[in-house]
């Protein structure tokens, strides 16, 4: 009797925070200590994630936080209007379990986790409004579900084809509506000056990513794929100025590392291009298995990393309407998300990444329950076969189990790449 009396039961929020902190710290420790010495500049990012997820430190106290789902909402417009964009895509298994109460069991774990996080109302930087583009089925339905939790959710119309003029005009209008709506809510108007400045800033951040990517084309790769995922994940919620400063330092350090010939992988580690469902912190299950199996991820084609930074906006005449339209065009046309009817652009990008980064193989990971990535598997596999590129298709979810099964598959693939390299 005594044992039961003295035991205090945690509240749901306390339990959630503790579990999430455990998940976070496990991954951070693995990154810090489980591999070769990471660049010193990564300390900023390790500390950032620890502050946010373990110490629950809010980052944007006095600013208006504009939550976004997916990557199709132009952050340039949000910054120009004085807001802070917070990407709400979530990677915690804890939140996935909470979300399972609201969504079917077989649903995409990313959507479940995002819904679970918002349902728990236990947020550090709570968004004041949420914009949800109608991308895949599950995200589209989730938008309305999240609204029922009491958040201000606005659907932003997003087309399912991108080749036609109709879809271009459609999305241009959609973004103009979005700008007008946000402008009203922020009580501020877009001006030539503020929009040009934010396009410049985001463009610069993207250029930093390109510089970091270029280092990974080298024979000795100075940074692990997992560390790069952490850097790009930080962009979801970090203060952009701090992020830019930290990246500049990282660029300098990587430049030095390349000169000093420091390689983050092993001597014969096969070079991998990672594509598919986005690995969002702390769900680095598959990338960690890959780099643990003596391979190194040199490039990726995912929306939590490469897709956010790959394409920059060009503007002809710097008028507000022209800038908004150029932004809409770029966010639609360059997008390689599998929600579109055709996916030629995605296949071409994967092939181009394999060639430019001299990769040995591609690992295509799909979340169990993600219809679009699972459906595209066939066309991508066929395309890779035509190009003579080895590819492994692997399905997973957020649960911490199945490590042995997944690592067997990854290891077998890595071993076959090593043998292929040796025979060349």
């Amino acid at each position: 009797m005594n044992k039961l009396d003295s035991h205090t039961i945690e509240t749901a929020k306390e339990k959630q925070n503790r579990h999430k902190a455990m998940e976070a710290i496990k991954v951070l420790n693995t990154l810090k200590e489980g591999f070769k010495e990471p660049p010193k500049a990564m300390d900023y990012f390790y500390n950032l994630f620890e502050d946010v997820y373990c110490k629950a430190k809010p980052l944007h106290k006095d600013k208006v936080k504009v939550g976004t789902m997916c990557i199709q909402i132009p952050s340039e417009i949000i910054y120009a209007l004085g807001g802070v964009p917070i990407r709400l895509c979530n990677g915690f298994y804890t939140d996935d379990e909470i979300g399972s109460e609201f969504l079917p069991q077989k649903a995409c774990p990313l959507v479940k986790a995002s819904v679970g996080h918002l349902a728990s109302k236990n947020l550090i930087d709570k968004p004041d409004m949420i914009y949800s583009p109608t991308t895949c089925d599950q995200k589209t339905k989730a938008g309305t579900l999240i609204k029922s939790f009491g958040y201000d959710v606005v659907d932003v119309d997003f087309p399912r084809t991108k080749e036609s003029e109709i879809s271009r005009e459609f999305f241009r209008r959609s973004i103009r509506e979005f700008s007008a709506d946000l402008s009203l809510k922020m009580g501020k108007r877009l001006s030539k000056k503020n929009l040009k400045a934010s396009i410049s800033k985001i463009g610069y951040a993207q250029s930093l990513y390109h510089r970091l990517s270029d280092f990974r084309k080298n024979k000795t790769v100075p940074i692990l794929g997992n560390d790069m995922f952490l850097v790009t994940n930080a962009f979801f919620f970090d203060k952009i100025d701090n992020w830019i400063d930290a990246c500049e330092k990282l660029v300098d350090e990587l430049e030095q590392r390349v000169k000093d010939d420091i390689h983050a992988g092993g001597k014969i580690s096969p070079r991998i291009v990672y594509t598919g469902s986005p690995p969002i912190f702390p769900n680095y299950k598959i990338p960690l298995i890959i780099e643990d199996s003596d391979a190194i991820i040199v490039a990726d084609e995912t929306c939590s990393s490469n897709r956010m930074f790959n394409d920059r906006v060009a503007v002809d005449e710097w008028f507000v309407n022209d800038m908004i339209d150029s932004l809409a065009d770029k966010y639609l046309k360059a997008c390689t998300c599998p929600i579109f009817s055709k996916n030629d652009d995605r296949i071409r990008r994967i092939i181009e990444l394999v060639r430019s980064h001299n990769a040995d193989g591609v690992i295509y990971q799909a979340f169990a329950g993600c219809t679009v990535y699972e459906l595209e598997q066939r066309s991508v596999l066929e395309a890779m076969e035509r190009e003579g590129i080895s590819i492994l298709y692997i399905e997973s979810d957020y649960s911490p189990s199945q490590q042995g099964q997944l690592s067997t598959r990854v290891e077998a693939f890595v071993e076959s790449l090593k043998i292929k390299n040796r025979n060349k």
Partner: protein
Amino acid sequence: MKKIRDFINKADIKRFRFWLQIFFFVIFIYGGYFAINLGTSIPVFSCGFDQEVGGMCYFLPLQHQLARPLDVLFSVASISVLIGFVTFLLWFIVFNKAWCGYACPLGTMQDWLTGLRKRLGIRYSTYTQPQFNRLKKIKYIMLALVILSPMAVGMGLLDREWVTAFCSICPGRMVTPLFVGDTSQWSLDFSSKSAMILTALGLVFTGLFVVGSFVKKRFFCFFCPMSAMHYIFSDAALLRLKKDGDKCTKCGDCYTVCDMQIKDIADDVTSTNILRDDCILCLKCVAACPEDDALHVDILNMKLFTSTKGGFEKRMGMQTYKGERDE
């Protein structure tokens, strides 16, 4: 070598183009004052009605030459027509359609009108895709007019006013002489019904030219018969606009900046020669491409100016970030 290449690829194309256009404008419009005479086979609208022209638009002599009876036209007596044509081709082959983007005085005037519009803060307008598809055929109809009208006169089907039918309706005839203070072209010719119709059309088209170029970038070039003529021979030219489809991410930046609204630049990832009939080779697309080596202009298969990440970042102001920092 790399430094020179870097300097070229990071160049501010807008400024380069502005000054080169002024240079050619002076040579062509005011050339006579400097005793410059580059002949009569120039592949741009350097209007012959300007008394001080430094080199004449090929269409004026061409129309006169074609106004002969067919048997004379296709005989040895018309060797001068062939010589004129070959001279035209030789001029053209060097710069391909860059003549349009960098040298044509009429093009330069349109760019100045665009500059005025930008200064007034007015936004440009564009064609919708269906409008674009229907209107793009007009330049070939104009080219047909240039060639067939004088020949019809030669065959006795039309009166002599129709020899230079195109020149009568061309805005160049009315606008270009203004720059040397000559307003004699601003009149309606009442001498005959055809002349009245043609000069009236000329006034209308000139009005359209001014208004159109103000609201739409390079409005006239979309209907230009010289552009159509260029395109027919563009495969033989030395300067080429090339695309490497593998590097293209179809982001559409090139299409966004293209004055002529050419979709193929962004959407075609299989062709290597990406010069289309509307293109004026202004190189805005190459300057706006954010990928390395996706678009480039070659001379004799050597890359002259290519798209680079660094060049893009410099031109779009993304090399460092300006603006305020948050706390």
